[in-house]
């Protein structure tokens, strides 16, 4: 067991990494009008985690569910991106990939529940998050995801804006729209996967949209606003969870909902 000061350090370290990860990726999610895309992630991460649980607990293949969850989320993201590229409206594309993921989830839920007594409990921890406040594993996962995602999202920010703003015009100008769609959806899938292992799929998909939604109201300082809101949301959320002895998903979820409600109130007045 870690001494208290190290626990505190770990807590705020993990919260800060989660805040930086979400702050960097959230504007991309929002400007591509892909908030409904979070539904793809919600369902695909769960399906992927169940595949991992099945492989690990039933088939005896030592593949950590985190890898299968992220891999499946990337596959579902590419499926969505391809459907959008082929002319499906995004909500229809999302519905297609959600249907696919949900089918996998239903089948594997049944298989896992009849095959192993602990499998379902393990899988459900990916839905609701773990009760551990912060672990070294969280820090490595979130830090690793941040190291991959942050440079790419910042380096390719203009491309992402162009593709979101005018995909046909961007294509005629020689921007590889399909490649960028795949890349951005995959980055969001990786971020969501890393986050889901700590917070659970349900809260991760809400938390990943919230800073971008606030940032879209401050168009000229999107990243600064997104990072600020995200850091406040995660540092505050983890603090609440620590003090109230709750899982971190509860603290972050509460703040995320409060921020979203605040944004809605402001926008309604405007």
């Amino acid at each position: 067991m870690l001494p208290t000061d190290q626990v505190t350090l770990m807590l705020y370290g993990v919260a800060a990494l989660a805040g930086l990860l979400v702050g960097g990726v959230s504007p991309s999610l929002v400007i591509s009008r892909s908030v409904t895309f979070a539904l793809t992630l919600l369902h695909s991460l769960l399906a992927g985690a169940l595949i991992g649980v099945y492989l690990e607990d039933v088939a005896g293949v030592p593949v950590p569910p985190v890898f299968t969850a992220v891999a499946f989320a990337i596959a579902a993201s590419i499926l969505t991106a391809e459907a959008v590229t082929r002319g499906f409206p995004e909500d229809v594309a999302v519905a297609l990939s959600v249907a696919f993921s949900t089918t996998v989830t239903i089948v594997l839920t049944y298989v896992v529940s009849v095959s192993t007594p602990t499998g379902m409990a393990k899988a459900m921890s990916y839905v609701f998050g773990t009760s551990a406040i912060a672990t070294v594993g969280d820090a490595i996962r979130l830090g690793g995801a941040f190291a991959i995602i942050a440079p790419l999202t910042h380096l390719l920010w203009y491309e992402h804006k162009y593709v979101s703003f005018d995909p046909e015009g961007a294509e005629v100008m020689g921007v590889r729209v399909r490649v960028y769609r795949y890349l951005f959806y995959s980055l969001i899938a990786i971020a969501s996967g890393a986050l889901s292992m700590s917070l659970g799929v349900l809260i991760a998909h809400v938390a990943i949209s919230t800073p971008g939604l606030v940032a879209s109201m401050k168009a000229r300082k999107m990243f600064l606003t997104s990072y600020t809101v995200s850091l406040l949301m995660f540092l505050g959320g983890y603090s609440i969870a620590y003090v109230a002895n709750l899982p971190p998903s509860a603290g972050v979820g509460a703040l995320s909902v409060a921020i979203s409600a605040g944004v809605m109130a402001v926008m309604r007045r405007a």
Partner: protein
Amino acid sequence: MNDTVRAESVTLAYGSRVVLEDVTFELRSPFIALLMGPNGAGKTTLIRAIVGILRPIRGRLSIYGMDPYEDRARVRGLVGYVPQILNVSRNVPITVEEVVAMGLLSKLPPPRLITREVGEAVRKALSLVGLEGLENRLFSELSGGQQQRVLIARALLRKPRLLVLDEPYSMLDFKSKCEIVNTLKRIHEELGTDIIMSAHDVSPCALIDPVVILINRKVFAVGKIRDVLRPEILRKAYPDVTEVEGMIILGEDHAPH
């Protein structure tokens, strides 16, 4: 490279649904051409083929001697494209400078940063369309006519030989339509840029006397306004047209999607 834009018996389709059949015309530089026809006539489809997004299922399209689909990279180096304003997402928080810079930055590898030189080129392009000083405004804060001119400036930054515009003045009032047409006229005269645009409404274009290509799933006529806009031709191209005391009334706009 020759100086003509030519379609020879071109048929265009989305999957098995044929949208335009047996389209033939030839435009010789310098030209301003107007693709005219009712909603669903195939104007946007033909424009998508001209800029190399859509491949004809039959026939041959040639842009200055090159196939726009097979020689995409070369043709796109010569073509500036202005999409329908309705197809552009006005929710993306993007500044006028960023939109226009896209014309130049898309030619460069990432990271595509707006350097001092790019900023200077953006300002020049904006002054060509009469929008100097607006580079720091958000695109969404501009009027419809200004947004259209920003997209034209973006296309001009690529120094195109051919400017292709899809419904450049849909959803605009008549004054704004005339401003767009005057801007295009100036570009054509000062830069020698060939122009192809689509529209429902020919009246603002009377100022520039374009070559009119009248289409509705096929070509009905090609020629100057006075030769094409004749009642007997229009009745064929616009079968559901409104007629009041012998006058044919055209000029409906697209409804917002």
